[in-house]
């Protein structure tokens, strides 16, 4: 009996050590205060909230059907069409609003997938070491030698174009960042006393990984995820712009730009507004990510500023 209570106490201690702060609520309050005081991060948060609402409420907000064609072709911005119309007489504003949905969806989904796979690979490689680590890391290193965007292009070359293949390609292209960061964190955390304590108490590998190692590795992973979402959105836009992405009926920002490309000398709005949407989104995420990085005091992530 006495033994089990000691065991419980040690585990409790380990639990406490394993969380960076014991009081989660105050941590979120801190984070909120940081964002509110950082003008850039706050602006980013507001823009992102608006964009997310736009994405969700697209059918309600959009003044027209994004694929409805009218006879007002290549109309400059006016009261009737605030951002003008394209060569087929489709309302640009409505297309951009619907595009928000797909661009954000792809950005978030791809990062969620690559985070899940990357983190699992990183934890397994870092925790078990040995040949498993060797095999996983040789692959990750190989991918690391190339920019994510190029990997995505290579994968589209193999899988073919289309929205599903594009999503898979971007997801796989970004996983090396997560695997590397996670593995690095695991290697440090593995040596901590609370992990040894948990092991001594007979905790299973799975339990140690899930309960003691992962919670302590979250900060850099969250920061990386934020940065990655902005790069994934850029990658999707670029691939769609090149014609490697979505089908023509689905308006995404990259595709709208690609369609307008031939007409920009006569209709500047087709070249300006869709890109502005991409830039605003990416800029907001980068501002937030920057504040997050400072807040969590994370150095190692593949951010660029």
């Amino acid at each position, binding site marked *: 009996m006495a033994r089990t209570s000691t065991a419980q106490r040690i585990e409790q201690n380990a639990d406490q050590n394993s969380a960076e702060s014991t009081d989660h609520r105050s941590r979120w309050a801190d984070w909120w205060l940081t964002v509110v005081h950082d003008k850039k991060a706050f602006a980013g948060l507001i823009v992102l909230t608006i964009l997310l609402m736009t994405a969700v409420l697209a059918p309600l907000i959009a003044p027209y059907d994004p694929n409805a064609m009218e006879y007002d072709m290549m109309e400059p911005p006016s009261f009737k069409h605030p951002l003008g119309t394209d060569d087929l007489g489709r309302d640009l504003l409505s297309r951009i609003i619907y595009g928000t949905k797909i661009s954000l969806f792809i950005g978030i989904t791809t990062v969620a997938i690559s985070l899940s796979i990357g983190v699992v690979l990183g934890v397994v490689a870092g925790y078990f070491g040995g040949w498993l680590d060797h095999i996983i890391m040789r692959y990750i290193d190989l991918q690391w*030698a190339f920019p994510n965007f190029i990997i995505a292009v290579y994968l589209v*070359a193999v899988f073919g174009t289309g929205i599903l293949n594009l999503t898979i390609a971007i997801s796989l292209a970004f996983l090396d960042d997560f695997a590397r960061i996670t593995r690095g964190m695991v290697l440090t955390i593995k040596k901590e006393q609370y992990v040894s304590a948990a092991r001594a108490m007979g905790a299973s590998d799975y339990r140690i990984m899930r309960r003691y190692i992962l919670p302590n590795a979250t900060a850099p992973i969250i920061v990386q995820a934020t940065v990655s979402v902005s790069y994934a959105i850029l990658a999707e836009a670029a691939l769609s712009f090149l014609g490697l992405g979505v089908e023509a009926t689905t308006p995404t920002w990259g595709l709208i730009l690609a369609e307008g490309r031939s007409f920009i000398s006569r209709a500047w709005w087709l070249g300006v507004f869709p890109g502005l949407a*991409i830039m605003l989104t990416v800029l907001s995420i980068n501002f937030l990510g920057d504040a997050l990085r400072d807040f969590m005091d994370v150095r190692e992530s593949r951010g660029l*500023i």
Partner: protein
Amino acid sequence: MYRYLIKRTFSALVVTWIVATLVFFMLRAVPGDPLAAMLFDVGDPQAAQELSQKYGLDQPVHIQYVKWLGHMLQGDFGSSIYGSRVPVSQIISEALPRTISLALLSFFIAITIAVPAGIFAAIRKNSALDHSMTMLAFLGLSMPDFWLAILLIIVFAAHLHWLPAIGYVPISQGVWPWLKHLILPSIAAGTAFSAIIARMIRSSMLEVIKTDYIQVARSKGLRKKTILLVHALPNALIPVVTVIGIAFALLMATTVVIENVFSIKGIGRVLIQGILNRDYPVVQGAILVVSVIFIFTNLLVDLLYTVIDPRIRYE
């Protein structure tokens, strides 16, 4: 040093071989193998038989692989499956000078802007200049490169008519026509790169300025300019070189997109067009060439690092 050089070169070659092997097997593992599709298109079983013998498709995969590797080593990438069946090696050798011109020009424009910008931002830390530079760097990194390209075309080509909107002219037809066609693409491709380098130089300068030997130089009464340019800058550049390596890789990735916006038939456009046309020999060749560029740029940067920082000695 030489041992390190040999070791690194060898591992770069191994990586190249692995990439080539992956390319070979992945492009064949995927459903919709273009050669198989071509054979079906023929319709006539005997003609199909002949074709498959001609391309060696009737042989086991490992023999095909060895043969293919042999061809690759001789620089024979096969030929495009479209039109006049131009050899891939010819397409690539025509495309490479364009890509290299674009990459180098972007690199120089970016560096010329980034280095002074980074230094000034560091000297006048927290000034209005510094803050606006930070803002510009954020913008430069958040702006999709192809959108910047489109904006440049709208302003400088479509409205002001200063520069051409698309195309490429080889340098052999005159430096100015060559440059004229490359200015807008280079600015579009170099902006993000420039932002990264400027930020890196700024933070690196700030680190160096804090060190003791700069304090010594200052207390000796040296002129500020001498301290900054002679004492601080060379040391501040060391970490920048590694970042230049990473950033150069990103620059190459950017040129793939930019070439497509400006219809410059460089290696990036060849790659994308190949993918869109499902022209596999072309895709295969382009992927290999792009990969080799990346692998050997990484190698070059690593070696350059030892030259610039004598403290670093590799085994």
